């Protein structure tokens, strides 16, 4: 009780002494951890470079401007590839995410003991690994190129989409499902009539949302060789062609802004 009776007057503190102590200790610990972390970063940093940074930034800026506009003619194909990686990757991911989501949702899983944990494991493991790492892995397995990019994006997105989707499935109105069940519908019919219409808006929202994210991600997949405009970025960086780099960055920025705009529009249309 934070209210203490001290010599007749009631003293009020927000927290009891012990709570306050624990909190102070927690803060102290947090600060200590941060200081230690900062110390390590600082040790690993060549501070000479940091003091030098403004000069270098200025140097890079002057060399990167103006962008080499004529280079844009060589970017058509990479942009097309980038968009394909994002779009096809998203489509494939959605196809795979739907069954996983149904297996993972508490109210639709066939077996909460065996299958649900497996589905959840798929969701967590695909989600916790960045698409660039998936790309590295797939390049090792199926060789560099657009295909590796598509598959990397697809795998990375499964967990993300399935997670949002199964949360949507768990939130459906069970009454509507019961009503369909009560008509004597089969298991699949219940799915098609009772559940699918209810999660359709969520599904569409997730699809567009993920596509938007995937456009961003696919722009950098090329850095590790998985196709798309990142390939041009990395080769331009390799020869220090800053005017090309700045042009590519502009193009990527434009793609991101447009995709955000498109997804906002589409989402608006769905809801």
């Amino acid at each position: 009780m934070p209210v203490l009776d001290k010599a007749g007057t009631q003293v009020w503190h927000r927290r009891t002494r012990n709570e306050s102590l624990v909190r102070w200790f927690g803060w102290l610990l947090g600060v200590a951890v941060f200081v230690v972390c900062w110390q390590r970063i600082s040790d690993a940093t060549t501070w000479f470079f940091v003091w030098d940074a403004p000069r270098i930034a200025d140097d890079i800026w002057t060399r990167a401007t103006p962008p080499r506009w004529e280079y844009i003619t060589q970017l058509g194909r990479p942009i097309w590839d980038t968009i394909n990686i994002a779009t096809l990757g998203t489509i494939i991911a959605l196809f795979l995410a739907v069954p996983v989501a149904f297996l993972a949702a508490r109210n639709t899983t066939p077996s909460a003991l065996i299958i649900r944990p497996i589905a959840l494991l798929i969701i967590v493991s695909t989600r916790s690994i960045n698409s660039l790492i998936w790309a590295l892995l797939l390049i090792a397995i199926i060789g560099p190129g657009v295909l590796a990019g598509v598959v990397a994006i697809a795998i990375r997105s499964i967990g993300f989409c399935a997670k949002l989707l199964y949360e949507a499935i768990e939130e459906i109105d069970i009454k509507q499902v019961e009503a369909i069940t009560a008509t004597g519908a089969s298991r699949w019919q219940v799915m098609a009539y009772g559940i699918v219409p209810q999660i359709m808006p969520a599904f569409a929202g997730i699809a567009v949302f993920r596509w938007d994210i995937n456009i961003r991600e696919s722009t950098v997949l090329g850095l590790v060789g998985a196709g798309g405009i990142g390939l041009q970025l990395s080769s331009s960086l390799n020869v220090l062609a800053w005017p090309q780099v700045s042009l590519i960055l502009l193009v990527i920025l434009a793609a991101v802004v447009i995709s955000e705009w498109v997804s906002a529009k589409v989402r608006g249309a769905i809801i």
Partner: protein
Amino acid sequence: MTARLEDMVGTPWRKPPFVRSAALRWTLIVGTIAYLIAAFATIEVDWGRVYIGLERGWQFILGFANPDFTSRGKDIWEGLLESIVMTVAASVVGIAISIPIALGAARNIAPLPVYLVCRAIIAVSRALQEIIVAILLVAIFGFGPLAGFLTLSFATIGFLSKLLAEDIESMDRVQAEAIKASGASWMQWINYGVQPQVMPRLIGLSMYRIDINFRESAILGLVGAGGIGATLNTAFDRYEYNTAAAILLLIIGIVMALEYLSGIIRARVQ
């Protein structure tokens, strides 16, 4: 409405199409199919290579069965530690900077000029992919975790400020007004009227962002910005699948632990 039963009985019934205009509908359908065909057609696939790769994929899966934590043990340990260090430092700094920016980006709190500036910061931070930011920062600050730390801090600002600002904008205005009516100063108003309302969301978002920051820190090494990514990249380059599998397992493990932890914390603050 002049729907008459006699007219309708005996006529077939079709579900009204999602897109009403037939022309638009067919344009959409044909356009989509054409796009898909074009897209698939332009993916060059070397099936022979894929076939060889399948065996390698199998080896990789075997690598998971038999992960090798030792032969690059030192690199893995240092890389992982560096990733964690970057995550912690960048999350702390990023969150600390995000809060004032979020306040500035909430239309119901900030005056218009401040609002525009803060929204601009958020927009820039969100538009730039982490990896691209990291490339630029590495070029400017040199290799090492500092570039990664700055990258993650910067990305945290875009993410956290935006969502937090949205939460502030949707807070209960009357509660905040009541504090104002008691003659509170601006800071007191934020502390009593706004902070309690957005605190749970702030904690939830922060936990989520820490999670994201760790995942991102695992790839920044690919462009030289510190962390486990460099070691992972080397392992892939050198076809050391057992080591790569070990690193991936560690990443998955840490991410799962973080997610579990954040679940607990979020449940506690409701």
